[in-house]
């Protein structure tokens, strides 16, 4: 097996964009090819595209060749699209990793993208409601916000987590996204504003929720030997983990414990030969404020039920135990489903290359990205290490 490195990154502007799915792909592609200046497009032999809901939100199938055309590349080894709702992008990265590690591909481009804003928001909501089992759960009006609202309700009930603690996650992540010009919400928010933002699904308010966002992100992967010729700072993919259970919300053994996340984290760290305490930063899937709080616990950073205390003590901020979501997270950047998993990796790589603004610069050597989907039944983890 060959070592696999990220050697280039590209982001487009995220938000409610006056741009189509194809145009989002072009923008992130341009940013990527600008970053790896001098790379002939013919050398990109594979393209993996993470995109969750193109059929529903952009009335478009066969997305991978569509993106290849936008980027001007003609894959000769692998061309595929991955769909795994909010983990679509990280899944594309994993496929590219396997292709390069096995020698099937030498240079692979990974793009995550999603066009989520449509002229009819209720049609968008309808499409989002088919991520859960549409016939048995979506049919009841269940989408992500009410699901995670029940998660928050149970966490508050079982462990005494407070709405203020949840709001602190939003305040922190918006403080980071305020430094990120690509973010959907590049503005700080106060505790008061989060706590008094309109209710979406109680106890979750608007600013407890990630946005409905258009966006794309891209990374370029190659094998170990080539990586050192392409960049001074290759960032190696050292560990991968994934675990999932069931699908029907009603059948989940617990709303507040995510054993599949624990498993994915354990496996990815083991593969990397590292521990959580080796990490210099982490990008966690903060689709809702409560998610990040539970993730502190499942990462082993806080005891079960003490995730609220962890944010309260500033442990997930720069200067704390582990800086989390320095790009602004899903709360600050928005959450274009297929793009998020790729953008998390972009942040870690840009941190290691000192390509981020000083207000959020952490740098370091080890980074962890965590991406979840559905009703938090599926979790994926990538562990990255800066090469010298």
């Amino acid at each position: 097996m060959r070592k696999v490195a990220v050697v280039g990154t590209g982001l487009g502007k995220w938000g409610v964009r006056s741009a189509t799915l194809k145009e989002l792909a072009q923008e992130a592609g341009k940013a990527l090819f600008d970053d790896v200046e001098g790379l002939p497009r013919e050398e990109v032999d594979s393209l993996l595209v993470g995109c969750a809901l193109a059929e529903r939100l952009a009335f478009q199938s066969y997305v991978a060749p569509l993106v290849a055309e936008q980027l001007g590349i003609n894959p000769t080894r692998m061309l595929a699209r991955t769909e795994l709702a909010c983990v679509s992008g990280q899944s594309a990265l994993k496929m590219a990793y396997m292709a390069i590690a096995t020698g099937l591909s030498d240079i692979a481009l990974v793009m995550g993208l999603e066009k989520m804003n449509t002229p009819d928001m209720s049609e968008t909501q309808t499409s989002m409601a088919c991520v859960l089992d549409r016939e048995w759960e979506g049919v009841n009006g269940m989408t992500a916000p009410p699901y995670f609202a029940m998660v928050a309700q149970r966490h508050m009930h079982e462990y005494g987590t407070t709405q203020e603690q949840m709001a602190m996650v939003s305040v922190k992540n918006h403080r980071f996204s305020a430094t990120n010009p690509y973010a959907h919400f590049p503005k700080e928010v106060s505790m008061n504003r989060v706590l008094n933002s309109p209710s979406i699904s109680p106890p979750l308010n608007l600013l407890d929720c990630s946005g409905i966002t258009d966006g794309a992100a891209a990374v370029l992967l190659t094998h170990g030997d080539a990586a050192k010729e392409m960049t001074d700072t290759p960032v190696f993919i050292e560990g991968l983990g994934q675990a999932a259970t069931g699908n029907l919300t009603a059948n989940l053994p617990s709303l507040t414990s995510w054993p599949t996340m624990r498993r994915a984290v354990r496996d990815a760290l083991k593969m990397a030969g590292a521990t959580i305490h080796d990490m210099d930063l982490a990008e966690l899937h903060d689709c809702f404020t409560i998610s990040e709080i539970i993730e502190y616990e499942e990462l082993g950073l806080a005891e079960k039920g003490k995730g609220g205390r962890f944010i309260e003590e500033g442990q997930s901020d720069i200067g704390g135990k582990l800086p989390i979501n320095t790009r602004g997270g899903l709360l600050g950047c928005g959450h274009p489903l297929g793009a998020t998993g790729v953008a998390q990796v972009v942040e870690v790589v840009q941190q290691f290359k000192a390509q981020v603004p000083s207000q959020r610069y952490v740098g370091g050597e080890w980074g962890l990205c965590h991406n979840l989907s559905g009703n938090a039944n599926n979790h994926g983890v990538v562990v990255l290490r800066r090469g010298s």
Partner: protein
Amino acid sequence: MGEEKGVRRVPYLLDFYPLQGEEHTRIHPFFTHLTEGRLTTTRCKACGEVLWQPRVVCPHCNGEEMDWIDLPQEGELHAFTSVTVGAPMGMEDDLPFVVGIVKLRGTGLKVLARIDGASYEDLSIGQAVRLKVQPLEDGRVWFRFQV
């Protein structure tokens, strides 16, 4: 209302409700039972596991022979919330509405459903609820729970 029974009112890909007739699904007895006021599911004849949702193959033992069994019609709220904005199509007029996970009495089984008969503010975890059969305008049927 005034339309032919069994005719869908929205395009198929915007229609949330399961197709329920014998020509569409092998678990059609679930819907027939529901019209009779019964909440039922399948139990695997081979291994005895109660399966939710109803299945045609047992995910535990691969058995294909199922018994239909009645589930309790009463339960308590394990978790609930209210959808106040962002309802899918066809549900906008219902806003705000309550959804919850109901733990069925005397079983380990939970089901997710709309909760009628109370607003979010009036509810708490553990609230008793009971089955409510909801006829759809096109002749199909669905289930909710009510306080």
